[in-house]
């Protein structure tokens, strides 16, 4: 659970599970939720049209009353319970939410219960206020206000039922950003004793992994900033052209040089730095040595 309010710029929510691990959730923002809502609205609209057709068909058969009765009950059920029942049945996902990869979950990451689904969707009529053109056009002013006021984007329905709407993006094991064996590590004689932190190395790895998102120029511009700082810290004595003209390659070399120490507990890292560095230099010719070294560390 979130403790003291910390100013945040992202929409994430953390939850601690019975397994004592903290899970983070990406909360769904207004645009996605609106999109999902519109799809659901379209689906319920189709049912309403179907109801109209029932009335017409019944009127032709001279039983307009019966048709209207059935249609009104259907409209009642769809208006009040479409969201609740689909959210419950598909475990937190109305068809609209499915289309946008959203899911409603209880606080704590648990699946939504039937009563929570009913509650949050009954309160929907309050969230939908004010309504324009009679009740035909919900503005969702109250819901938006509540969503922004709560900071973690909960509508009144979410508050009452203790639920949140999250994004469920597809999970994929990230690929290796570069083929390590092909990268020439830095020459140990050209750098000082400084060794970048695990965080920095992770940053380099992720940056390289996502380098195709940026244009060549912009990517290199950004890489240069980090490359320059690191070159200074490392007291890099090699060709300065490498840092300014090929910053990405330079970053990759740093990564190749130090990635073996990426994870080690501080004490063992200190013990193994020497041999590890040497192993790192040899590695390009002997990739299979990797695992053995790693296990030892």
């Amino acid at each position: 659970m979130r403790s003291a309010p910390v100013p945040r710029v992202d929409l994430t929510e953390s939850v601690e599970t019975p397994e004592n691990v903290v899970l983070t959730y990406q909360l769904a923002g207004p645009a996605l939720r609106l999109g999902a809502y519109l799809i659901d609205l379209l689906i319920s609209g189709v049912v309403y049209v179907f109801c109209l057709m029932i009335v017409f068909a019944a009127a032709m058969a001279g039983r307009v009353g019966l048709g209207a009765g059935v249609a009104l009950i259907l409209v009642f059920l769809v208006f009040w319970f479409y969201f609740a029942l689909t959210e419950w049945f598909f475990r937190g996902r109305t068809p609209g939410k499915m289309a946008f990869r959203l899911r409603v979950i209880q606080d704590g990451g648990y699946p939504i219960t039937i009563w929570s689904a009913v509650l949050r969707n009954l309160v929907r009529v309050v969230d939908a206020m004010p309504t324009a053109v009679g009740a035909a056009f919900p503005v969702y002013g109250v819901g938006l206000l509540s969503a922004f006021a709560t900071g973690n984007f909960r509508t009144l329905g979410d508050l009452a039922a203790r639920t949140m709407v999250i994004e469920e993006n597809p999970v994929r094991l990230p690929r290796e950003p570069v083929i390590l064996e092909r990268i020439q590590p830095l020459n140990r004689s050209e750098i000082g004793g400084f060794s970048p932190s695990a965080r920095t190395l992770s940053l380099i790895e992720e940056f390289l992994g996502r380098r195709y998102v940026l244009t060549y120029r912009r990517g290199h511009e950004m890489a240069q900033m980090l490359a320059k700082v690191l070159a200074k810290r490392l007291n890099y004595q090699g060709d300065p052209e490498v840092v300014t003209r090929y910053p990405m390659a330079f970053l990759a070399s740093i990564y190749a040089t130090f990635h073996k120490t990426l994870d080690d507990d501080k004490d063992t890292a200190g013990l193994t730095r020497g041999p590890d560095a040497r192993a790192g230099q040899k590695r390009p010719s002997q990739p299979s040595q990797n695992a053995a070294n790693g296990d030892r560390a």
Partner: protein
Amino acid sequence: MTKRDFINKRRNAWRRFAELVKDLNLRRNRLSAEEMAEFSRLFRGACYDLATIRSRNWGTGLESYLNGMVTRAHNAYYSAPPGNLANSFRFVTTEFPRIFRRNIGYFLVAATLFFVPLGVTWTLVRLNPETASRIMSPEQLEQMGKMYEADEDEKDQGWLGYMEGFSNERSGMAGFYIFNNAGIALRVFALGMLMGIGTVWYLVYNGIFIGAAAGYITSLSDAHREKFLSFVVTHGSFELTAIAVSGGAGLILADAILHPGQRTRMEALKVRGREAVQIAIGAAFMLFIAAFIEAFWSPAPLPANVKYAAGATMWLTVFAYLGFAGLDFKKE
């Protein structure tokens, strides 16, 4: 161990875990016992891996991969067994009346807010029918007067006309009563989230409106009075009570926000919101019953005394249902 070695070592376990999570998500609790045991083991392993990755800063890519899998697994693993028909039956016969009695104070407040304005307006309009025009337009009043006129045609048709309408106008009215009345009840409940202002307003407004209508019609003539009273007495039991019941449920929400007690407001809403929504759904169920009585029984061409007797029975039924159904003598 380096990140690469770690990934290489754990990759297959994660793959298998992802498969099982997908299965569990699709087939809802239909994994075999062995699969479930495997899932459980892999789940704990993945949680451990996630913690490892976090503590070693192995980057957000890997972290979000495992986080995504574990959140999905968590959601699927801790789901409650799906509900069934027996649960719904038990809710109606036992749970709802019990929860209602636990929160009877809110019902009494809502009933006061609804029935007192109703009774006062009824008496006032009865004494001075002119005042009805302050609440309703002349057209509305005229229409209402006509509705409860002793209709000679209808008397001639008697049962025949009533039976004919059974599968037509009567059904239409049943649908309308559900749509309208149950809709009002659920709205009255939901408005509790705005600190109950809307709930109170709806209760008082409906009390005044119904009271004025009743007072006006009963003041027109004896025939009007008899027709009106014999019409409303039976379904009124379920209908009027249910409005107050759902109003009470709305007041639970409002009270949780206004007087959270030792809890935070959010916490209070969480605890009491659950009972509140159950009461509201119970009220909607009562209005379903009321709608069918109102549509099919109330307009039946029966002597007024029979209807009064049926009405009295129904009021007793409602009282007995809410007061005693599912009574647990040890606890209550």
